[in-house]
């Protein structure tokens, strides 16, 4: 039978059991308890094509033998005008062909480029550098490009050059003979040190391709942006001035994102001319566990996702339901790709898919039908992965459970259906994944199985969110000085820094500061006037950690005497991560194995963490206290009577103790075991919202009866607790929904709600009498959170005006990521989403649930939280309700007794 029989009613007769697996069909035939399912129709799109010869010279158009999609043609026209291009269209819309053909054009032209002396300059023909985010993709696309040049009858040599390429002669041969070199940015960063060996390749470079450019966001995006700037310096040095082609999944801000990456204007091509078949989207919220009658949910092998509050997580987890649906679809002959959020779940899903069949053996009477299922992730050997890719392509596999390793453009052919185990976090990734089903004009089916999390629940209750036109913005920020400084060292090593860099590489003041920093540290020598050389330890490029901002990294070492076969070979850890997750005594799960941290060495030439494998019946959860000090507003704007700020500040985290939690049942085995760690200061960017006094007064009054007896001390019963719970809930909700607007990971953001924003801000030194003290307080971060809190309380007491209340949202990375800045810019849209999240949640609880205002990373154990108060605050912000002057007196009254509360 063919793969697509299930697709329509008319084909139903050919299906072996006659059940048409449409969206509706899945809902109706699934043997388990029904959850809540919504079926959304996504209409088909017709192809828009243009004859190839309208755009291309005959030598290329003739052998091509097919028309170009409109977006391919548009991009090629723009490239012919020497513009940089970002092509942002759907999965499988033929983006590779755009740069493949542009390379062919250069090849045929023997393009002299902007340097007329090219022929004299180099005997070498035109070259191109093509950069992919993964090594797997590099090899896949090397084949694609070679196939293209075979079709075109061109002798273009395409070679992969990365960490897997043999050293020595093999590398030299590629550098000196390849027309197209395919690599990744970690490689580009490394190879720039030896640019002399690449002189002829760089000198002849006419095109730089950045494929899957949307993946370059956050910290990694910053490193890539600076690596590209360094690459451009070297290319310029050798007389090359190449064009850039970026290809991206659909993102909200392709022009801004591309320009931030390459620091040049970019023409965006986003009118997708490729055809698309009709698609049914099933948004599947699993049934309540009790309704399912399923007490055997495999919680035990799911320690990572044990919820803090078991009784509220009452729906079946997606990790159980999604594999069953996956198996159900393959049973009905639909070749299906299941996307899972982790390698471990990819493995487990295969097992659970089988168990689903056993469970309803009455329904699945032919259990072997459609049961050739495999897992796929980067942990598998290359051969094995390649075999799975081939199995999908040829149709010999019925289904594959994969991490997002199969989300990017590897050529695996078309699937009939996709299932997503949980919402992947971003619309961009969501569309990219479901694009794997139904390539071409075939009908396709995609099932999203919602998990308990905030975003999942938001998405299934607001299906229109997925189909709205705007997708998230990709945030890449070059303002982080820690990352910048790291690349300044590398740039100086590659070519001396001079005056031209003060125009082209970075602005003068910033460049001079970084040069001075390293000159003082002994790593750079000289001045911009006459050239700044690198004089530090060899190969500064090797100190660039493409996924971390700066500072120390900790190696992960196996304890003495443990067999090396247990070495988990973990990547080095950033300091923040060590404090949070790898303190002494922590039990971590890695690739399905438990490890205990037995020692942490902070000092010495190589800080490291020592781990040993263990088999224990608990995991650990670190208790975190956090506060913000010295927030310094750099910009602000008014939203009605509210004021929103963005600036810099210090976030102080204290991971002072941890709990041991039993895997079975979730009871605490030991509580508040001290970690012995000091507070960890982080200089970062933050934004904060000031609630106007009148709104505060009204809400304090409205919720003054609310109490949280579990809270320590008098605060739990105070009149402010209800309002404070509202701010706290609004803080959680705004952070929780930020990924709906921006390509951020919630874990990269943190927050703090407070009744006294002012006390967290940088002390004013206007008063000379006080300046000595203030300097003393602000220049050194307090050693402990208690000291910081004492400072904040004393500042609050010293304030000569009533402080404003509100909440902070900060970038969880040293130096900042640009996320809080993006949130500052998009605050109204985020607040709107947060409001509808809280209002739309069916938990019916004032203190919410993990799907709305609870946060598993909350440093205050999710207390106090007040959903209604949060909605009132957000309404006041969004509706800009007028506030009656009458309540201002009451405000003043309350102030005297207001506690200095803050919640993270």
């Amino acid at each position, binding site marked *: 039978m063919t793969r697509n029989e299930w697709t329509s009613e008319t084909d139903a007769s050919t299906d072996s059991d006659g059940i048409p697996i449409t969206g509706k069909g899945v809902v109706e035939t699934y043997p388990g308890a029904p959850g809540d399912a919504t079926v959304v129709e996504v209409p088909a799109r017709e192809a828009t094509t243009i004859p190839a010869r309208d755009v291309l010279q005959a030598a290329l158009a003739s052998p091509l033998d097919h028309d170009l999609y409109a977006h391919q043609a548009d991009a090629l026209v723009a490239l012919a005008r020497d513009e940089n291009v970002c092509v942002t269209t759907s999965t499988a819309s033929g983006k590779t062909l755009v740069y493949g053909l542009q390379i062919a054009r250069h090849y045929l032209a023997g393009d002299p480029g902007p340097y007329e002396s090219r022929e004299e300059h180099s005997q070498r023909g035109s070259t191109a550098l093509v950069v992919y985010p993964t090594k797997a993709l590099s090899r896949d696309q090397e084949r694609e490009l070679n196939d293209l040049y075979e079709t075109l009858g061109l002798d273009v040599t395409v070679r992969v050059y990365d960490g897997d390429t043999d050293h020595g002669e093999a590398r030299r041969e590629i550098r000196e003979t390849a027309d197209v070199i395919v690599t990744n940015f970690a490689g580009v960063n490394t190879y720039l040190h030896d640019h002399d060996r690449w002189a002829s390749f760089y000198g002849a470079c006419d095109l730089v391709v950045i494929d899957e450019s949307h993946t370059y966001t956050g910290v990694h995006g910053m490193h890539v942006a600076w690596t590209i700037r360094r690459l451009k310096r070297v290319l310029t040095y050798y007389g090359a001035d190449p064009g850039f082609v970026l290809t991206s999944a659909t993102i909200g801000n392709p022009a801004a994102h591309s320009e931030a990456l390459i620091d040049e204007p970019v023409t965006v091509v986003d009118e997708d001319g490729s055809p698309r078949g009709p698609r049914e989207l099933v948004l599947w919220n699993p049934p309540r566990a009790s309704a399912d009658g399923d007490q055997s949910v495999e919680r035990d092998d799911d320690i990572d996702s044990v919820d803090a509050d078991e009784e509220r997580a009452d729906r079946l987890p997606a990790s159980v339901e999604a594999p069953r649906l996956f198996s159900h679809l393959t049973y009905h002959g639909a070749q299906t790709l299941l996307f899972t959020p982790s390698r471990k779940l990819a493995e487990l899903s295969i097992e659970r898919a089988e168990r689903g069949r056993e469970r309803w053996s009455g329904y699945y009477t032919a259990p072997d039908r459609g049961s050739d299922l495999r897992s796929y992730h980067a942990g598998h050997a290359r051969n094995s992965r390649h075999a799975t890719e081939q199995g999908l392509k040829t149709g010999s596999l019925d289904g594959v459970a994969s991490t997002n390793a199969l989300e990017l453009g590897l050529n695996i052919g078309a699937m009939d259906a996709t299932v997503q185990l949980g919402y992947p976090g971003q619309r961009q990734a969501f569309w990219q994944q479901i694009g794997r089903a139904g390539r071409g004009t075939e009908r396709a089916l995609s099932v999203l199985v919602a998990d308990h999390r905030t975003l999942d629940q938001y998405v299934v209750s607001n299906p229109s969110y997925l189909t709205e036109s705007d997708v998230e913005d990709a945030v890449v920020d070059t303002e982080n000085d820690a990352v910048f400084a790291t690349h300044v060292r590398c740039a100086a090593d590659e070519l001396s820094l001079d005056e031209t860099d003060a125009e082209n590489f970075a602005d003068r003041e910033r460049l001079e500061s970084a040069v001075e920093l390293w000159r003082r540290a002994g790593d750079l020598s000289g001045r911009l006037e*006459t050239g700044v*050389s690198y004089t530090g330890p060899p190969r500064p490029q090797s100190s660039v950690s493409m996924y971390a901002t700066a500072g120390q990294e900790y190696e992960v070492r196996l304890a003495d005497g443990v067999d090396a076969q247990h070495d988990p070979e973990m990547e080095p850890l950033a300091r923040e991560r060590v404090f949070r997750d790898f303190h002494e005594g922590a039990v971590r799960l890695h690739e399905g194995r438990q490890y205990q941290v037995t020692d942490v060495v902070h000092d010495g030439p190589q800080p490291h963490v020592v781990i040993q494998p263990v088999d224990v019946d608990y995991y650990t959860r670190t208790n975190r206290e956090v506060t913000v000090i010295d927030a310094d507003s750099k910009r602000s704007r008014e939203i009605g009577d509210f004021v929103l700020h963005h600036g810099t500040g210090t976030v102080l985290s204290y991971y002072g103790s941890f709990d041991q939690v039993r895997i079975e049942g979730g009871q605490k085995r030991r509580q508040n075991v001290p970690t012995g760690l000091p507070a960890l200061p982080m*200089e970062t960017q933050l934004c904060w919202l000031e609630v106007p006094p009148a709104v505060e007064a009204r809400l304090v009054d409205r919720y003054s009866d609310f109490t949280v007896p579990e809270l320590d001390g008098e605060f739990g019963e105070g009149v402010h607790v209800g309002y404070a719970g509202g701010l706290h809930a609004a803080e959680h909700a705004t952070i929780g929904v930020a990924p709906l607007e921006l390509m951020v990971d919630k874990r990269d953001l943190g927050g703090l709600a407070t009744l006294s924003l002012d006390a967290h801000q940088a002390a004013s030194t206007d008063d000379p009498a006080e300046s000595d003290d203030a300097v003393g307080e602000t220049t050194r971060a307090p050693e402990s959170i208690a000291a910081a809190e004492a400072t904040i309380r004393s500042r609050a007491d010293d304030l000569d005006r009533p402080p404003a209340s509100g909440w902070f949202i900060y970038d969880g990375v040293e130096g900042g990521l640009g996320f809080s800045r993006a949130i500052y810019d998009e605050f109204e849209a985020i607040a709107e989403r947060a409001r509808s999240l809280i209002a739309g949640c069916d938990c019916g609880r004032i203190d919410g649930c993990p799907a709305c205002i609870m946060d598993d990373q909350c440093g205050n154990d999710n207390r106090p939280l007040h959903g209604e108060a949060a909605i009132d605050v957000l309404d006041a912000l969004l509706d800009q309700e007028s506030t009656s002057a009458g309540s201002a007196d009451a405000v003043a009254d309350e102030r005297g007794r207001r506690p200095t509360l803050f919640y993270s």
Partner: protein
Amino acid sequence: MDAAVGSTVLAIPAEMAVMRDSTALTDVRAHVEPDLVLLPGPDRRPQAVARARQVFEGPVIHPPLGGADGAVQHHAVGDASIVSVQRATALSKAASTVAEIHADAPNRPVILVCDDVGVSVDQTTLEASLDHADALADVVPAGRSRVTILTGRLPAEYDRCWVLDRADGTIRDVREPSAIRLDDDRSENEGSTTVSLRLRGVGSIDDYGDSGTVVTMRLGHDTPQEYAGDDATDGTGVADHWPIRSVDSIGSDAFGIRAVDGVGPKTAQALVDRDVRSRADLLETPISELTALPGIGASAADRMRQHARVIETGEPCRVTEEPLPGSGDADPPLCLDIETDGLSPSIIWQIGVYDPATDNYRAFVERRDPSDPGAVVETFVEWLVESQADRTLLTWNGWRFDYKHLGVFTERYAPAYRDSWGSLAKRDLYRWAVTDGNAVLPGRTNKLTAVAEALGYERAGTGLDGATTAAAYSRFVRTGEPLDWDRHERYCEDDCRALWSIYDALMDAPIAAQDCDRTPASQTGLGDFT
């Protein structure tokens, strides 16, 4: 120039003093002949002091340990005073000691040793600050402007002059050695409103691996006469001169039995266990006993002994039949050296070529127009191609520097000669001898000067080194003030001739037994060339 040398201060890693056999320390003693031995912190290693005292005669100081007199100790070494400070909190006490020294002898240079002093780098705010700057500023008494500070917290290459406000310790400027020596930034106010703290590292350099760095500091005037004869200023009016004339860093594995190729920490320990403690012991140990050690085969044992012999005798030895680079040509190779304006050069301003066939030296120098970074390279390559195309070029570590940058500059500024440059015969004597393991050379390091001097080559004594000549040229570019061109050309010529002296010694060197294998020797570390 050596007449000016007064005393010598040696810094050895405390780890080395504790862990290495005493023969390694005696080897250091013989090589350096120190007047004072410093065991830098910041880690406190009392055993290191005890071991060092058994070997060295002069004072041994380990600042983290303090001394009989408490946290601050004072030692006189030659013309200078060395004040060792246990911790930063004792800096105020050190200030009184320095004040007393100053009252006694206002011109006596002071070297403060304090391992709590370091440079804090904050990449997030792009700021680098001097730790304990306030307290350090207070150490310099009124009437004096300069104090040198040594710290084990920074690597031995570190050398910066921190100019601080005398009153509050705020940073006014941070100068590099070239600017310090040339003194072109010396302000009138120095001494009255500012203090100059010359901070120098005595800790281990990263790229020496785990072995640590042995630092030799020769005391004497580090003044313009010695370091920048091209400079007009004469150093008058400098009451308290900078007391450290030169610093030499060598990996600690260049001493004792570890100096022998193939003897790492494990083998060294295994040898000590058999009472083989020095290179002399090694030479007396039969091959059969060496091959009994784990991981040592016959050829490795043979090679170890060869190398030990070379170090002991100073006579090089060829260990393969491989002909010397270019030895098949009618004429010997042209010995080449380039000078740039830094490690990431923006100009190659001098290219020196020594022709052993005629004993002629030729220099290509950009004295007039540094704005054309390719001119010298173009002239040089043109000359080579037109008149020397049949000659082999020879460098010392050229693939990492001279050839690398000449290739880049040709590609960039003289593309017409790209192919001609590519087709010239380019060989590297360092690669041939050391990397490819065709010869065993004497010398504590593989630096050109160390090897040549070990072979008896006498340097011209220009007082220059690569970094100094680079900095001097940068200054010419910036100010237009000409250099003492002759001196800088003599320096480049000296390196070319030193290269030839090594080649010449290898031509005469005996070829050792046929049965040695050709396994490349392990290099002693990248640090050889930095």
